């Protein structure tokens, strides 16, 4: 048995903002010497797609900083989500925040294990050929085999 610390993460969200925590924490943990596994389930499966097309929205998220105060009904207009996504990406780039593609690649380079939840892949009729290479498939029991031995377990 190795004395390496272990980090287990469950990634459940499929938006641009919430895609960051799992990849930031996993890549950093790997750099610190943790053996790391991310279990992607439900909307988190979107983070595994080769072509990441994640969006961000202020709807239902009053905490999101806005350039100007805007009534919720206006925020719901067609095109607003695309505009917010573009603005968020621009802001991140200008502040030197890594792209999700880069962070995910860093995770792969650091041997972070990525497991897709088989049940939700089937539920949403997702095509594994849309996912990046190296993804493994498993269920709850697969997750617990690793998580049960982990030092840190996060549900994101």
């Amino acid at each position: 048995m190795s004395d390496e610390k272990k980090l287990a993460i469950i990634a459940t969200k499929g938006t641009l903002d919430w895609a960051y925590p799992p990849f930031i924490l996993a890549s950093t943990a790997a750099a610190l010497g943790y053996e790391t596994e991310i279990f992607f389930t439900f909307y988190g499966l979107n983070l595994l797609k080769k072509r990441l097309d994640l969006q961000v929205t202020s709807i239902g998220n009053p905490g999101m900083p806005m350039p100007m105060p805007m009534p919720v009904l206006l925020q719901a207009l067609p095109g607003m989500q695309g505009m917010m996504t573009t603005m968020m990406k621009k802001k991140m780039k200008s502040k030197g925040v890594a792209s999700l593609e880069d962070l995910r690649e860093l995770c792969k380079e650091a041997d972070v294990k990525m497991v897709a939840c088989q049940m939700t892949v089937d539920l949403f009729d997702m095509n594994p050929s849309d996912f990046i290479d190296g993804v493994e498939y498993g269920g709850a029991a697969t997750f617990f085999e690793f998580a049960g031995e982990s030092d840190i377990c996060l549900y994101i």
Partner: protein
Amino acid sequence: MANFDQELDASGLNCPLPILRAKKTLSGMESDQVLRIVATDPGSVKDFEAFARQTGNELLESGEEGGKFVFLIKKA
């Protein structure tokens, strides 16, 4: 400032990239060699202290130079 064997410019990069780049550069270096890192992310000051404590690589120096943060890390 003391001698170093390799230098990494992490200017303009934000968390966690300076740490990840440093880790990657260190893994290509020999034991006892020193890496100099230049960063602009204020969070990197605490992060490099934590990185050193957890990885066993020694943080020889941490300071500011011309508005940038400079670190010297000796590979374990």
